[in-house]
């Protein structure tokens, strides 16, 4: 029988350490909606999403009540819209109408974000892919809940540098289109290399074509729980440090597994994967940076940060893998700047730079995330940063992502405020030496030699 100590420990994690399930994400295949008439396509898409996701929020709330565990977000991901709209959309404006349809469907079901306004262009772009990409600034300016992502490369295909260059321009245009809201649109736009098909986390979630008709994916969280456990391991050797992280990651992931199976059973939709990530929020005590500092750094960004993060990321995976029946998505530690109070503090005190963050992304789950940069940053420089990050993903056979926000009208020393889970971000300085001539080259960077495994 469960002991009093175990009950107290679990409830302490929930109440004091912000243990929660970060997201239940319902993936929906929209390909059955496809017709070549845009009006009918919009109707089909709206009906399919509201039909399948009508109970998502209600079921999420019932599970919260049953276990008294907060489920912070209920979300939807859909088939990349560049595929869904390929035959009905003949101009960027047509795709924007689809985005508005997604937004209405998300509002109707009560989810806070819907992901999948996406194009997968790792090798080359179709006409529809390009139209969708060019529609992103208006789509994100005119909708509230739609999230967009573009996959510009992979280890198998190399980097599509035409798409990288275009995305540099699109990020700038999105920033300008949402300049009145501190360029908020860019916080909902992710540029990937090696994007997974089953990621439940926004803004990069989409329902890949390798998936079934509908799937439940769950993202767990819990940096506060890991931090609290590590306080008790102060001064201990690496063995004990690793054991503590693994045990905690195991417990966090088990909660995710429980919620995922219950949501799947109640909705009658198959369970896909658990994404065992440490996802911070701006709340005090819910920070990945604080874990790194607890491991022994005066401030995140100090020498040793990359090694500490590598250790953390690996132990989270080792602990979590045994706890879940199927692990996928991004899985690891997230290091978004604006969504993590410890990262914000480190950036403000000058301890953390974009270059150090880039090094950190070599060993953690995602990439340069929620970083605000000066509004004057050129499209070419943005594309250069995208290319660097994508190259890390391509060479290391891992997912990397970039969510940069060039905040129009703001410069180093200013703060951009996005609100809610998206947080606030100090504008970080960007290396201003030009990469224009490199970025303006046409074509792609070929796949690396170690991709030839057949």
């Amino acid at each position, binding site marked *: 029988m469960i002991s*009093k100590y*175990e009950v107290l420990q679990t409830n302490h994690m929930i109440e004091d350490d912000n243990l929660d399930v970060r997201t239940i994400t319902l993936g929906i295949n929209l390909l059955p909606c496809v017709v070549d008439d845009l009006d009918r396509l919009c109707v089909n898409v709206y009906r399919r999403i509201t039909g399948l996701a009508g109970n998502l929020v209600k079921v999420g709330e019932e599970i919260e009540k049953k276990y008294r565990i907060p489920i912070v977000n209920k979300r939807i991901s859909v088939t990349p819209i560049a595929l869904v709209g390929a035959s009905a959309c003949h101009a960027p404006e047509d795709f924007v109408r689809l985005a508005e349809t997604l937004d209405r469907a998300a509002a109707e079901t009560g989810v806070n974000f819907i992901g999948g306004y996406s194009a997968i262009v790792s090798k080359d772009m179709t006409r529809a892919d390009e139209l969708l990409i060019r529609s992103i600034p208006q789509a994100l300016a005119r909708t509230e809940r739609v999230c967009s992502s573009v996959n510009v490369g992979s280890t198998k295909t190399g980097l599509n540098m035409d798409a990288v260059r275009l995305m540099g321009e699109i990020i700038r245009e999105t920033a300008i289109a949402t300049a009145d809201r501190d360029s908020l649109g860019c916080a909902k736009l992710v540029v990937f290399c090696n994007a997974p098909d089953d990621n439940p986390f926004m803004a990069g979630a989409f329902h890949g074509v390798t998936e079934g008709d509908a799937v439940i994916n769950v993202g767990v969280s819990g940096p506060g729980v890991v931090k609290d456990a590590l306080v008790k391991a102060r001064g201990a050797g690496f063995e004990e440090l690793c054991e503590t992280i693994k045990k905690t990651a195991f417990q966090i992931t088990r*909660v995710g597994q*429980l919620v995922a199976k219950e949501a799947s059973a109640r909705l009658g939709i198959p369970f896909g994967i658990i994404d065992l990530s440490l996802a911070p929020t701006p709340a005090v005590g819910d920070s990945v940076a604080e874990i790194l500092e607890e491991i022994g750094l005066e401030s995140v960004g100090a020498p040793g940060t990359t090694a500490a993060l590598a250790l953390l990321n690996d132990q989270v995976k080792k602990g979590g893998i045994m706890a879940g029946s199927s692990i996928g998505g991004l899985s690891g530690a997230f290091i978004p700047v604006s969504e993590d109070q410890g990262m914000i503090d480190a950036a403000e005190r000058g301890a953390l730079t974009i270059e150090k963050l880039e090094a950190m992304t070599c060993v953690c789950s995602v990439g340069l995330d929620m970083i605000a940069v000066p509004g004057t940053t050129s499209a070419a420089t943005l594309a250069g940063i995208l290319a660097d990050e994508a190259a890390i993903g391509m060479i290391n056979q891992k997912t990397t992502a970039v969510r940069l926000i060039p905040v129009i009208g703001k410069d180093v020393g200013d703060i951009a405020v996005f609100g809610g889970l998206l947080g606030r971000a100090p504008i970080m300085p960007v290396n201003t030496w030009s990469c224009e001539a490199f970025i303006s080259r046409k074509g792609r960077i070929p796949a690396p030699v170690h991709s030839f495994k057949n």
Partner: protein
Amino acid sequence: MQKRVIITVVGKDTVGIIARICTYLSEHQINILDISQTIVQEFFDMIMIVDTARCDRAFSELADDLEKVGKEVGVDVRCQSEEIFDMMHRI
């Protein structure tokens, strides 16, 4: 088969907390399997493990009812399905 629920009660000690909660449980065919209760500096702290297999109320109604009963005697009562503790603490 048992359907175990963990009831946690925390608040300022007063006369009749256990009585009120147990009365409700017996009225709704809920069997108590284990009780652990302490008082630290006038604070009442109790964890009960109960079996709701024969309970005539749905889980969410039970949770709401017990919260209300708790409020009447000035304590915080919460119900959780045992599975969350099993998942976290048992392999």
